[in-house]
């Protein structure tokens, strides 16, 4: 009797599901029709982290271009033979909103995958939900190391950009090789983000770890970093590592000038090292303080004259002119959005049109090589590779030095995780 009732309920339930699913084809993968693939992501378009909004705008603009252009091997418009509908949801960098909006994307918009969602904590808070439901959470816009290192436990999730530990290690190896007697002071954001960088720096320094003579953390709500910087100066350090987010990076430069401290070497993490933020840093301190800062980059910098005649940069400017005519074209975050949108487009292009499922997407994403030829927004020589043993897609960066209002390359490409290479 009970069994019969259960059967009845199950039958009724499947009938209801069948009816609601009928519009998209009963067997179809959610978000995929013959003509359109629907994806989306959450971003802080408002609130304290709204300065990252250009990434979302860049992604949307890039897909507008793809949807209107015949490109790729199939000479068809869109990616993988389908138009890409990218839905941007504003979460204001508030995890309550991230969860709500992600569930909206999944349940109401029926997205095929979330692509490029921004923020370590917000994306971490929807990871369990997306993995439990088998929904790809690919190319998250955060460089926390655990996206790569925990990929095996969270099969539907993967990062994209070089990770923070890898970047810290690049600085560590450079200091060990070039200035082994330098005394290092670190100002860092007092959380996992800042500590990720410190862990990387220590790994890169290896046996020279004792070069670090002082570390001081600041909290996100601290209005001043003067106490930290005064303490660091007092340690007698000649090399300053800034492992911060943009606002506090600018504040750090302003304070350096105010207290008259000019360390011989300043290293700045890549998150803050974009043209927009450096211009602000320059305006709030002076050239003497900011010049000479060292950082890394893996994408072409739209503010640099280096790419004036570059085909990829010309494409970027052309698309920006057409789809985002009022936006600040030198803001590298738009280009970041372009590069990421193109990466996902390349993955779609490489899956036969009839074979696109959530599982086939993940299989491809986890075993994929994307060179600079496929993605004209990467620096020459930079590629994105994943394999059985490598869950860190972008894995080459270039050291850069700030000079006279812009970044200049110093040296060759370096691998943040040389041990991972086969």
């Amino acid at each position, binding site marked *: 009797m009970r069994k019969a009732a259960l059967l009845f309920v199950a039958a009724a339930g499947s009938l209801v599901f069948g009816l609601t699913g009928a519009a998209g084809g009963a067997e179809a993968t959610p978000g995929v029709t013959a003509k359109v693939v629907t994806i989306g992501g959450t971003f802080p*378009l*408002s*609130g*304290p982290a*709204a300065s990252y*909004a250009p990434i979302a*705008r860049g992604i*949307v603009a890039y897909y507008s271009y793809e949807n209107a252009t015949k490109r790729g091997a199939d000479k068809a418009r869109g990616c993988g033979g389908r138009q890409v509908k990218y839905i*941007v*949801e*504003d979460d*204001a*960098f*508030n*995890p*309550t*909103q991230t*969860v*709500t909006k992600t*569930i*909206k994307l999944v*349940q*109401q918009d029926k997205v095929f995958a979330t692509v490029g969602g921004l923020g370590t*904590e*917000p994306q*971490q*808070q*929807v990871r*369990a*939900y997306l993995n*439990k439901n088998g929904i790809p959470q690919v190319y998250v816009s955060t460089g926390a190391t655990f996206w790569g290192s925990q990929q095996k436990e969270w099969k539907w999730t993967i990062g994209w950009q070089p990770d923070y530990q890898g970047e810290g290690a690049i600085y560590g190896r450079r200091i060990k090789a070039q200035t082994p007697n330098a005394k290092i002071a670190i100002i860092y954001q*007092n*959380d*996992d*983000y800042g500590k990720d960088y410190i862990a990387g720096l220590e790994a890169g320094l290896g046996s020279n770890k004792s070069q670090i003579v002082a570390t001081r953390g600041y*909290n*996100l*709500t601290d209005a001043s970093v003067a106490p930290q910087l005064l303490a660091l100066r007092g340690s007698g350090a000649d090399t300053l590592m800034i492992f911060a987010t943009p606002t506090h990076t600018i504040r750090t430069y302003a304070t350096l000038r105010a207290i008259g401290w000019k360390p011989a070497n300043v290293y700045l993490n890549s998150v803050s090292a974009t043209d927009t933020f450096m211009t602000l840093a320059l305006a709030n301190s002076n050239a003497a303080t900011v010049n000479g800062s060292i950082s890394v980059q893996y994408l072409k910098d739209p503010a640099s004259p280096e790419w004036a005649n570059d085909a990829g940069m010309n494409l970027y400017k052309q698309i920006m002119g057409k789809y*985002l005519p*009022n936006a600040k074209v030198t803001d590298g975050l738009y280009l970041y959005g372009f590069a990421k949108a193109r990466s996902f487009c390349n993955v779609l292009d490489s899956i036969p049109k009839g074979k696109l499922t959530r599982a086939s997407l993940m299989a491809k994403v986890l075993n994929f090589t994307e060179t600079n030829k496929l993605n004209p927004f990467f620096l020459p020589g930079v590629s994105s590779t994943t394999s059985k043993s490598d869950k860190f897609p972008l894995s080459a960066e270039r050291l850069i030095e700030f000079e006279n209002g812009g970044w200049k390359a110093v040296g060759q490409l370096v691998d943040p995780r040389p041990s991972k290479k086969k």
Partner: protein
Amino acid sequence: VKAILRAHVVSGACLVIGIAVIAALPSFMGAFETRNMSQVGLYFIALLGLNIVTGYSGQISLGQGAFMGVGGYTTAFLATEHGWGVWWTIPVAAVIAGVSGFLFGIPALRLHGPYLALGTFALAVAFVDLVRSDRFVDVTGGSQGLFFGLPEAPYYETWGIALGALLVAWLVLAGKFGRALKAVRDAELAAVSSGLNPAVFKTLAFALSATYAGVAGALLVIQLGSVNYLVFVPTLSITLLVGTALGGFGLLFGTIFGALFIQYAPLKAEEWANEVGLSNELPPSVTYGVFLLLVLFLMPGGAAQLVLRVRGLFSTTKQRYTRPTVGEGTTQRSDT
């Protein structure tokens, strides 16, 4: 007497209709809408609490989000570290938040008007740094936070608790305690001279309000399945005060409008901006701001007052109703 009786009949009828609507809603809504309405339920509870302290005892609190955080972190801690069933954590969350509110209320009493607002806001700001700092990482999980489950939408549980919270607030405020609070708010000197100790009542109001916040915070964390410091940022406290103002200070039934606004205004503002094609030019927060201004212009005194006004048009006994002034303990009200 007749008028009072009639008022109770009307409120009772409204309550019954409200319960019926809320009970029936999920049959008409999809999973996503049900989830939204579950969140409305917990905001409703938080706003009830805030209305007690701000609307009835006349103190502006910008710290309600922090007390929600105390409740939310209590739930997450017990569920993650001690494997408690989430529903059993709610009473503990309520008590801990209530005690925090009581303790905070003692010094906070010395502050008045805008100073109290600043003091409570300091609490909201400090809370974020406290929970993400290394010092309490064993309890709060630091900047990573705590993870214990998947997002859920416990609709009936949330609204069941909300109903209980409403009835308790109703009973408490209709009685001696409520009258004392109003007396302290409207004429503190007169209250003192008739033997009331304003300090006691204000502190108790604070504690009760924080208890409500604790329950709401616990429910929020249950609905998220996890918590981190970004959940209880200072803007949450501001949003809650906005919600209370929109519902109408000192009017419990208006709270539902405030809760609906908190949940739906950001969602709808974004949808609207997308439809009109403004999303590339304006951040959704700007549209949200326009929404807020419109509502404030159309309904000064909150949604509840609008309802009262409309009712006043049809009632024979002209009831004059003026907006209660909050934060100034000496303003007279004409409706009490």
